[in-house]
């Protein structure tokens, strides 16, 4: 970025930390963007004529007489149809070798939607994955993360969901993405011939961590453009939000703020909510749906990052390796989509809620049977049958490589019920049993 003629240049840097610098300057607005020694920074604190900036790429090598030029505006993104199909860095600059996007300049991190202008989410998103569509149905306007261990294939599942989700636009916000994963996403989208409806903002592990703070706002500003102005169905993928939160804690630490739980800033909840709450359903059909990834350390969901996330998002999805079938499945016990109630049995076949509950209940019985087996107790005939059911249920429905429509999922459910159990054991409402039981 070039400094422009009308900008005033300041050179009196008073203080430098690893992530911030303080300069004497006047007439500066809060949250304004500046170029410090050729690096982008944003104003985070002003005391009289002392202006503190967070330097996104770190302060290594910045001298006390460095030139500081203020832009007179907060970070912005040029929005327009031309965004589609492009790859950008955290500052919204193209990294795909293409030209700068011409369009309307919008401030990122803009205001919230008035809650009375929202509509209740009611349109389901189908992914073909039964662990999601059958048990944890997603709805437009929802926000939901994968809670996953770093070694799980969450990015693959997310890419799959994105491509099958029939969204008008898919916006990828990559934070601390490894270069390999970045190339994976690029390749998957390319192979699917979907590049024209994908927009990516990517900060890889090779980029400075504080830059990540810009990525979700960039992605969501683009999303708001398409959802509000163009009334499109937009799906936003944010991976990995744990690395975003880590970047927040770095900045708050450098600013001498008192950390709260797990060395996270006290404002973590608000900081995350500000992003996730951009998920919205509008009256005119436009919507923003957010699917995120929060990596866990050692599966601990009481850590401040997943904990605060869980209070904000509308459910969470867990992946687990099922050793019985040797495949990764969507865990039916710990996963939850809070908004599924709005669509299942209403937008899908009426027996959907009952089939879903009965299958999970029988799967739970199988888990109990397995515990019994491990503890050396004898299994009853019913226990044996639940185990057989569980193996098939896991392989034919829960595994993430399944790709069938919801009707088919329900039919498979009925097939498995009829094969392994009596009608009483399945305990579904009589009128459904009469209609769907496979004799």
């Amino acid at each position: 970025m070039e400094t422009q003629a009308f900008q005033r240049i300041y050179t009196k840097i008073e203080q430098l930390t690893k992530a911030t610098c303080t300069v004497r300057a006047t007439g500066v607005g809060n949250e304004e963007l500046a170029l410090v020694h050729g690096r982008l920074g944003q104003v985070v604190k002003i005391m009289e004529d002392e202006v503190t900036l967070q330097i996104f790429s770190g302060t290594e090598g910045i001298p006390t007489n460095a030139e500081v030029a203020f832009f007179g505006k907060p970070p912005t993104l040029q929005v327009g149809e031309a965004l589609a199909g492009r790859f950008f860095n955290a500052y919204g600059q193209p990294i795909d070798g293409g030209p700068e996007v011409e369009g309307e300049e919008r401030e990122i991190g803009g205001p919230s939607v008035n809650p009375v202008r929202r509509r209740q989410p009611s349109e389901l998103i189908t992914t073909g994955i039964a662990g999601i569509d059958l048990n944890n149905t997603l709805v437009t306007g929802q926000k939901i993360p994968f809670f996953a261990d770093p070694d799980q294939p969450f990015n693959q599942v997310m890419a799959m969901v994105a491509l099958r989700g029939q969204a008008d636009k898919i916006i990828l916000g990559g934070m601390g993405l490894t270069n390999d994963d970045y190339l994976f996403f690029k390749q998957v989208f390319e192979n699917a011939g979907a590049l024209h409806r994908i927009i990516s903002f990517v900060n890889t592990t090779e980029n400075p961590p504080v830059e990540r703070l810009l990525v979700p706002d960039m992605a969501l500003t683009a999303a708001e453009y398409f959802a509000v102005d163009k009334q499109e169905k937009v799906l936003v993928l944010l991976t990995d939000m744990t690395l975003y939160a880590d970047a927040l804690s770095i900045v708050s630490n450098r600013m001498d703020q008192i950390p709260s739980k797990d060395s996270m800033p006290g404002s973590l909840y608000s900081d995350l909510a500000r992003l996730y709450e951009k998920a919205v359903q509008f009256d005119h059909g436009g919507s923003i749906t957010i699917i995120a990834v929060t990596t866990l350390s050692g599966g601990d969901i009481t850590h401040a990052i997943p904990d605060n996330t869980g209070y904000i998002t509308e459910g969470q999805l867990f992946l687990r390796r099922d050793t019985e079938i040797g495949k990764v499945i969507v865990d039916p016990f710990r996963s939850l989509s809070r908004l599924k109630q709005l669509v299942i049995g209403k937008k899908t076949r009426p027996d959907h809620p009952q089939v879903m509950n009965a299958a999970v209940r029988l799967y739970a019985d199988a888990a109990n049977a397995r515990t019994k087996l491990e503890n050396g107790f004898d299994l009853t005939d019913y226990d044996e049958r639940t185990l057989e059911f569980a193996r098939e249920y896991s392989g034919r429905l829960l595994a993430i490589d399944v790709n069938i429509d919801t009707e088919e999922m329900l039919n498979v459910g009925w097939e498995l019920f009829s094969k392994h159990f009596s009608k009483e054991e399945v305990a579904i409402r009589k009128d459904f049993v009469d209609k769907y039981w496979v004799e």
Partner: protein
Amino acid sequence: MSTSPNISATGKVTGIIANLVIVRFEGAVSQNEVCFIQHEDTALMAEVIKVQKGLAYVQAFESTRGLKIGADVTFRGHMLEATLGPGILSRNYDGLMHDLDTMTGVFLKRGEYTDALDSERKWDFNPVAKEGDTVIAGDWLGEVRENAVLHRIMAPFQMNGKYTLKSLAKAGAYRVNDTIAVLTDSDGRDVDVTMVQKWPIKQAIRAYQEKPRPFRLLETGVRTMDTLNPIVEGGTGFIPGPFGSGKTVMQHAISRQAEADVVVVAACGERANEVVELFTEFPELDDPWTGRKLMERTVIIANTSNMPVAAREASVYTAMTISEYYRSMGLKVLMLADSTSRWAQALREMSNRLEELPGPDAFPMDLSAIISNFYARAGIVYLNNGKTGSITFIGTVSPAGGNLKEPVTESTRKAARCFYALSQQRADSKRYPAIDPIDSYSKYLEYPELQQALNEQIAPDWVDRVNELKNILIRGKEAAEQINILGDDGVSIDYHMTYWRSEICDAVILQQDAFDDVDARTPIKRQKYMLYKVLDICNTGFSFESYEEVNPYFKRIINQLRQMNYSEFESDKFQEFEAGLEEIISERKAG
């Protein structure tokens, strides 16, 4: 809140840290005074939270993006106020009591402050006092009908001492800002009274004679509350629970079903889609007590998690002030706040920016005092005219990591008298509502005045039977532990029966389907019927040959009782299931 023109002091911005703004001022400034920061052509509302060395530290209720040093600030000589008058019911406000529906545009705009009340609408006013009467603050002068309630027009709460009613408007249609009465103070000065008054939200309205101990049940239709751990009219309760344990579903159920004239919901720092659910459903759903639409008795104060953090604290105070206003009319008010943890977090953010020494988990040291003060504003009161009015307050708490030892939960436990602990374990096994029956408590159940009232209202031996239920649940838990340790065949059949008795109580009394039309709300008469039914079964001796027969037999009993729960009370279907139940019981009834 319309901006009043009186400016008490002025100043200029000298520092900005997120939404904390430091102002050098001239003139007198008071703690918690409201000020406006002029940013380009919008005025941003803020509140003084600290004054030090000639500098006022103010928290802005808006984003301070773009704000510059030297911006003009005007102080308004009053604290943050609620605007109280007819027309509050069925409205959706933000945390500072601006009407969300009259705002323009899809996005919230900084500095767009809409009026709380419709100043054009005319209300049919009926005088109830007489000219020449002596009146004090809070006395009823007249009334208008607002939806289902009689909205009393009261002498302003700000008045000190005795006044004489000099003139009072005749019955007729008036706007809220029309003068409807003139009062004369002891020095002979006249005060004009309209239907609107303002009150600083952080102060309690004390226009009542006394606040007795609560003594009447507040029916919610939720069995695990009403039967096991009842909340009372004017009582306080809190619901802590990890995410996904059903706090919000629980609060929504209470807000729909509770026996209240007015329900004030403060959606404080929670999900916007949950508030949208209220906006969408309440205008459609019926109030079970009046048959009118639920929205008619409801006020929603929405400061969702993405709205300005500072207004989050204000939102619970605004809701409480509105509740106190309606209580002064002799009404039963239910106030719900979801979640008070978010409010505490807002306090923490600000305390941090002020560089105060932190208490536990970086929360401010006075957190406990702030929470107690707030809960103390609820209660049943005798008004000046001897009538009662009440605020029942139930807050949710979102403990970090589901750990009930964290500061907000601990502080709230000291302040609230009912504790409804949501358990992850119950939620995981889909036993909803996931309120742990053994950890939870209602202190009110120990009040002799309430015990007496319950026994008179429901049945002479009611409290004893409730305690019997609690004992069965505790014994069942103990038996389950024994069975787990010793194995199914390592204990006598009695243990299995003890366990399954408690399972009946759990499945039939405690568990309730909030999404089923019939089961969602159980009137107290039906709760009594089912409790006595269940206790009768628990007191019946059954004979079994081996432990393996116990489980399937009791499952059949539970299934039958559950079908009863799903059927209209005393309907043919209900009686059919009951007859089936009696048959099952007679199969194994001992001797």
